[in-house]
């Protein structure tokens, strides 16, 4: 029978069954939305007035269109009105993870209806059960000695045992708390609600920082949770003057961000500027500090970053004690510290933990790494194309012998290699971990042996590209390294068209752009241009005991971080007592 059907299907024409095709069409009301907006605003205002005039207790609250600019209604004394409004705002029952739990609270001898709302998976269930529901439903039956006549005061003072409870008057405040893992509690007869911080969503634990590894020093890195991150900083900086100011960024994401600064140290105008920039952001969605960085930086188009992006709490704490400000974004394991300068971006957090000779050796190596990453390919182009006389004869002969069989001009040769290298680097980040080693083998084979054996490139170029790559990896700031990777291509082109003159033009233009740039009002090339006091921690590092002054260009409220004699034991006359060190 099946065979017969198959044969029939092959021989006889069968009309195809109609298939519903999906096309994403414009919303019906979208086109006319803009025209209606103005009318809507007027209507909303009129509606507000009418509702206010009528009996608020008996009329159901209606959700007003927020896009039309209407204010959300106040919390009603009628529980049913609040419940209806909450269901509408949270799209219950369409929204499946919204939990609304209705229950009764015993106040005196009366059972008062109440409900709580939260997102399943966002809250800590044990806390909700033991600290919210149990006291309200069970412990309220106990004979509590209280003279509080008001329900809200009675519940807050005697029933709710949870430690983080806020009494709020607006729905938006409750909604904000619920959206961030809290719960809202509404009680009949109250025109306020309780918002409890009962966050319990899953998050990564504190681990070693992935991008700023150090041999010596703390091994803790930030996580994606803002309060964990602020706590990590507070753990290091035990100072009540450390202020953590909260802001919400993003119309929809409502991403919590914190500005951190030390109240009696950071310049007020710096803090005000960070606050102003952060507060003025009007975007829909923000998820990471990288996006905040782009939204608050001084200049978008210069290649250098204008803030320090770090995942190390110890580094943030140290920079805060210099008088800087920091921004931490919920969902990002990177904190932003501002302002910064071109020289601080080549510092590693490890520098402070190492003895001065070692730290200074590393700083010299990093400076060389920057020069190599930026200029080496361009220099190679300039020397091979224009300034061959600079190369000693023996070396020149071996270079020429190596290049003899290469069919490409040196610019093509170097671009092939640099682009290949960038491809490997990008692929190395995207490739799944298990096949990562394969990439190394492919890269080594293609870029190393095969390219030379096929006379596509000369061996010296392999060395140039490899050393350039090493140089860029030695730069501590990932963003700063990007900057040099981009500019390197410019120097290659300039070096290949005009030799040292081209390189000079590149250096001049880059230098001019750098000295004209600013990071939160601080010149990017300070303390060299303009010259300010204290060159002790720029290219090289002073010993710990000699770092008396904070960076001058930050204009902190207190210029000195330690007395001139910070090692009391060097003064024999006071036996090491440094209480009068100044």
């Amino acid at each position: 029978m099946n065979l017969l059907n198959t044969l029939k299907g092959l021989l006889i024409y069968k009309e195809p069954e109609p298939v519903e095709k999906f096309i994403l069409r414009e919303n019906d009301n979208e086109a006319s939305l803009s025209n209606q907006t103005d009318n809507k605003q007027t209507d909303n205002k009129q509606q507000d007035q009418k509702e206010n005039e009528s009996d608020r207790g008996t009329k159901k609250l209606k959700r007003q269109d927020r896009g039309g600019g209407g204010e959300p209604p106040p919390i009603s004394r009628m529980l049913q009105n609040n419940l209806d409004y909450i269901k509408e705002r949270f799209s219950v029952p369409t929204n499946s993870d919204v939990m609304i739990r209705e229950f009764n609270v015993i106040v005196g001898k009366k059972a008062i209806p109440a409900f709580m709302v939260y997102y399943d998976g966002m809250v800590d269930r044990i806390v909700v059960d033991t600290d919210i529901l149990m006291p309200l439903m069970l412990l309220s039956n106990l004979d509590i000695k209280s003279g509080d006549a008001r329900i809200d005061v009675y519940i807050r003072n005697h029933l709710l045992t949870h430690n983080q409870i806020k009494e709020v008057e607006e729905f938006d405040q409750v909604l904000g708390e619920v959206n961030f893992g809290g719960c809202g509690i509404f009680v009949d007869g109250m025109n306020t609600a309780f918002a409890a911080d009962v966050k319990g969503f899953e998050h990564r634990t504190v681990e070693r920082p992935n991008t700023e590894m150090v041999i010596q020093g703390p091994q803790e890195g930030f996580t994606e949770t803002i309060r964990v991150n602020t706590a990590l900083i507070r753990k290091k900086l035990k100072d009540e003057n450390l202020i953590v100011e909260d802001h919400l960024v993003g119309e929809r994401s409502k991403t919590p961000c914190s500005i951190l600064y030390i109240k009696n140290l950071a310049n007020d105008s710096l803090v005000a500027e960070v606050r102003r920039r952060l507060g003025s952001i009007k975007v829909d969605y923000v998820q990471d500090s990288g996006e905040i960085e782009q939204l608050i930086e001084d200049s978008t188009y210069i290649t250098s970053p204008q803030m320090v992006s770090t995942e190390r709490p110890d580094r943030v704490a140290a920079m805060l004690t210099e008088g800087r400000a920091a921004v931490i974004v919920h969902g990002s394991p990177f904190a932003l510290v501002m302002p910064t300068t071109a020289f601080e971006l080549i510092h590693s957090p490890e520098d402070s933990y190492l003895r001065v000779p070692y730290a200074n050796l590393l700083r010299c190596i990093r400076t060389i790494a920057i020069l190599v990453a930026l200029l080496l390919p361009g220099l190679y182009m300039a020397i091979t194309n224009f300034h061959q006389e600079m190369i000693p004869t023996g070396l020149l002969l071996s270079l020429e012998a190596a290049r003899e069989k290469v069919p490409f001009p040196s610019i093509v040769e170097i671009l092939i290699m640099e682009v290949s290298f960038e491809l490997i680097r990008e692929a190395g980040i995207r490739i799944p971990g298990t096949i990562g080693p394969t990439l190394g083998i492919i890269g080594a084979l293609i870029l190393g042996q095969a390219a030379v054996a096929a006379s596509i490139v000369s061996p010296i170029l392999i060395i140039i590209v490899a050393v350039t790559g090493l140089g860029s990896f030695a730069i501590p700031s990932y963003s700063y390294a990007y900057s040099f990777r981009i500019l390197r291509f410019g120097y290659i082109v300039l070096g290949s068209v005009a030799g040292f003159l081209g390189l000079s033009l590149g250096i001049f233009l880059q230098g001019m752009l750098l000295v004209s740039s600013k990071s939160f009002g601080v010149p990017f090339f300070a303390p060299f241009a303009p010259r300010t006091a204290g060159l002790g921690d720029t290219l090289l590092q002073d010993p710990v005991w000699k770092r008396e002054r904070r960076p001058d260009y930050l204009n902190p409220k207190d210029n000195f971080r330690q007395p001139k004699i910070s090692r009391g034991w060097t003064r024999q006359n006071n036996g090491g007592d440094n209480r009068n060190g100044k």
Partner: protein
Amino acid sequence: MGAITGMASDITFGGWEAVALIINAICARIFLNFPREVAEDAGTAGWLETVYFSILAFLLFYIIARLYARFNRKDILDIAGLAGGETGRIIGGLLLLGLILFAGALILREYTENMKIISLTDSPLGFVMMFFAVAMVAACFLGLEPIVRFIAVSVPIITAGLLFIVLMVAPYYDPTHLLPALGNGFYGIFGKGFFKLSTYSPLVYLFLIPPFLKDQKSFRRIGYTALGASALLLLISSLAYSLVYSYPTSLENFLPVFQLARLINYGRFFQRLESVFVLTFAISAMQYLGVILFFAVHVFKKTFRLEYHRPIILPFAVIMFSLAFVPSNLMTAIDLETKTYMTFAWSITFILPIIILLLARLRAAPGPLGAHPGGSPPTGGHLPESSPQGASATYRRRRSKGGGAL
């Protein structure tokens, strides 16, 4: 940040930035033909000629600085306005503009020709000149503040490079090359040497930046420091050149410092370090040309009371670019410089300011004068526009005052 915005009309340079600006402008000639020019004038006593006209420059600047004492925070154009009204300011401005453009075009041509000869022999002249032109236009667009900051960083490096060359050729020094001590004689040293005062003609930029300087005292200090450091570097270069090359050879050399660099030979590997000279030479040239174009535009804008300076940057760059092509070859350009520019530039640099200052003192009432002659803005007009948040240039000054605002 309000502090910064509020300070935008109070932009001043730190003393070091202003000193570096003048040093770079004066000593740029070292990389061109200065050591050979003094050797041509005075023979083996080129260094003595340098000392002579440097002392003259000091004396003339002393007079100017004394006359300037009453004109706090005014540039020479403001003072010309006081001395001769609108007409005085326009005449003074046009004379200065002529000097700056003439010098700029000649220097652009000389730098380009020299670069072509030492490094880019196969490239067309216009192509090489384009690199300098791009640099000076970019610098001018970014404004005076980044220019002076960049110069403040680069001048010590370039000076170190020059001193490195001078030290590395020490094995070739021969004191007998300085004999006879008076070289070509008194006329060569003191007669021709007088016109070498024009070497210090970039001092005109100092007379244009008082609105950006803290006070008269710093103006005087900056002037003396810049003159002293420049004189020292000019002396060192001419002395080293005379010590290395005998008189007949010294007249034939093209780009004397480059020729000195070519002699550096330490071991089998480090034989040809003169290419490094190209880097310092080119960067020094670019920043000097940036200064020239900026002040040409600045003088024009201020002379004719224009509101903005950016629209005239490109036209002025094109004018300089075109003027640089007027000499038919390098030798004509050098002739124009040594025979024409050197003959009159000193008078506009030193005599014109003295006349203007004297007239202004005669016409102005006794007592210190304000900073708004003829309604001119105190900052000289367009600096705030070119660097809207440039108050940080005053960091050092304000730091020294203990200012707490960021």
